[in-house]
């Protein structure tokens, strides 16, 4: 008997008992849909995380100083000198001083985090200028009261009007707005557009703190990230003599950690959904066993007409495989729809993974074959005489 014939027979037998076939498939449908939904949502979540990390720049390095008795272990000048000295490894450097402050312009006022940085700050964080200029090297030594603002701040304080050249009050001190950044996020309060950048020297005064506890640097390329980390760590160890006083990390390291984490999360969730697939498989086996008993006489007839063991075996295995494959396809379609519905309700990004769809489909077919095999083998071994006289 040809394979196409066997498929035609399986399809016919399935379509003649629609309700039963549907109930048989239900376990597979739910299992596959659950796998697709979970993988799509976790996939979207991790894609969001990755892209936000990548927007920070994958070559970025961050140095945190825990201090020693209140004195800074590494002055900005020393860090800059190190960068100049190892320009093959390090390309940009900016201290980071963050101060929470009240901003005022005319009657408009808001609270924001004001960040002090060097002339490299905007480059390290991916900002580009829409108008005016960024913090310049000369501003640092002069401790100029200049500010570069993000698009959200511009919108809130200057009402989308001309901001460059205007005066902005930060905690009561007057600053001149010298530049406005291009929109980087979506210009909302929680985005990267809610930002005010001033020279770090000015920020040290504003925050009444002489300590610089954090630096952002950038390696010359992704290939030099490791070497740059080693350089910074050895320099800092020489200065402090204690590994606990500093911490050097890179965005790509964090990205790896996050990817590892979401990968584990996916595996756990898929594992749980996989249990449903297993239950679905057992459902198929159960129905196939019932079906073999019910169709004992039919099997007898088929054998008396020349049906061999493998013909009967193939018929029942294909029936189970087709049932679970159809269940798999329905589950995939439902899963994709459900993922988008849930994604839009919870405003989560949804990433449909082709691999997940393919694996879900092959697993469901595999389950059909696996669990359909033993009932099919039972059917194929029936004695034709007994089967013919089965009532």
């Amino acid at each position: 008997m040809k394979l196409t014939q066997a498929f035609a027979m399986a399809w016919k037998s399935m379509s003649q008992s629609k309700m039963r076939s549907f109930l048989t498939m239900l376990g597979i449908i739910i299992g596959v849909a659950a796998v697709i939904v979970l993988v799509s949502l976790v996939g979207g979540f991790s894609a969001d995380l990755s892209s936000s990390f990548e927007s920070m720049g994958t070559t970025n390095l961050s140095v945190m100083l825990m201090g020693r008795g209140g004195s800074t272990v590494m002055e900005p000048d020393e860090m800059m000198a190190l960068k100049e000295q190892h320009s093959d490894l390090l390309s940009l450097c900016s201290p980071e001083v963050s101060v929470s402050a009240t901003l005022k312009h005319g009657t408009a006022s808001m609270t924001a985090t004001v960040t002090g940085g060097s002339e490299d700050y905007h480059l390290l964080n991916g900002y580009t200028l829409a108008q005016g200029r960024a913090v310049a090297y000369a501003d640092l030594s002069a401790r100029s009261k200049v500010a570069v603002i993000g698009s959200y701040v511009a919108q809130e304080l200057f009402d989308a009007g001309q901001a460059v050249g205007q005066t902005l009050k930060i905690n009561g001190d007057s600053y001149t707005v010298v530049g406005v950044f291009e929109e980087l996020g979506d210009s909302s309060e929680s985005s990267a557009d809610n930002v005010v950048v001033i020279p770090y020297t000015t920020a040290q005064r504003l925050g009444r703190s002489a300590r610089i506890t954090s630096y952002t640097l950038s390696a010359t390329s992704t290939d030099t990230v490791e070497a740059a980390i080693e350089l910074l760590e050895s320099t800092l160890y020489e200065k402090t003599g204690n590994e606990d006083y500093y911490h050097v990390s890179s965005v790509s390291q964090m990205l790896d950690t996050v990817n590892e984490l979401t990968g584990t999360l996916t595996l756990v969730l898929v594992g749980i959904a996989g249990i449903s697939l297993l239950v679905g498989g057992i459902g198929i086996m159960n129905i196939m066993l019932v079906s073999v008993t019910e169709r004992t006489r039919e099997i007898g007839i088929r054998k008396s007409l020349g049906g061999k063991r493998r013909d009967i075996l193939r018929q029942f295995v294909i029936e189970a495989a087709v049932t679970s494959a159809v269940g798999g396809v329905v589950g995939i379609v439902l899963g994709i729809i459900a993922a988008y519905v849930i994604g839009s309700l919870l405003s989560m990004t949804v990433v449909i993974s082709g691999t997940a769809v393919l694996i879900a489909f092959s697993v469901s077919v595999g389950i059909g074959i696996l669990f359909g095999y033993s009932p099919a083998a039972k059917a194929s071994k029936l004695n034709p005489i007994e089967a013919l006289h089965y009532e």
Partner: protein
Amino acid sequence: MQENRHHALIEFSHISKIYEMGESEVYAVNNVSFQIQKGEFVAIVGQSGSGKSTCMNIIGALDVPTLGEYFLDGQEISGFDDDELADIRGKMLGFVFQQYNLIAKLDVYENVELPLIYASVPEKQRRERVMQSLERVGLKDRVHHMPNQLSGGQQQRVSIARALAGNPSVILADEPTGALDSNTGKEVLAFFKELHREGNTIVLITHDNGIAAQAPRVLRLADGRLVDDCSGAQFRDRLRTLQMEEAPT
């Protein structure tokens, strides 16, 4: 398969079928020998428990004997395994059962086509042979009816068409009139006679002496043994004598 003129189409040589019932052995068929030539119409008759069903199962390659040899078209098949027997059934035998044994969810065409699918006959040839045999039984206009839309007689004709489609060496009919009313039964029997005239070999198994007597040759079994091997006419005479003996005067 080698064609051998010197061999009978069906040859039972000292065939016994023994079942073990606990400690004792029961002979369902006990040392039975006979030959059936190509083109014969033979009725095997007997009461229930006479061994006729076991004989049918062995002739039909559904079962193998415990002792003795069974030659089908010169080939000894009692040592064959499941799949080899299935192959023999598909290629050499056409079954007609008392309960028709059509597959309820397949239509008339698909039922008749089934043995040809198992015999791997190509699609185009299958179509021709199915239509031919349905025409032969006069049901060409019911091709796409389901079995439950047909009368008993029509269903039995479909099952005959299914037996014919495979172009078998032997048509094996097990109580083919058993489930039919007497008129329809007669029609079916007349149809077997016609098939016989066309050169088919027919073996009919029945418990009904009256039906058996219409076959040109009758083999009567009792308690697992072959007790009569005679022509239909002789069998009718014997029946008359039996009835006269039994009938109170």
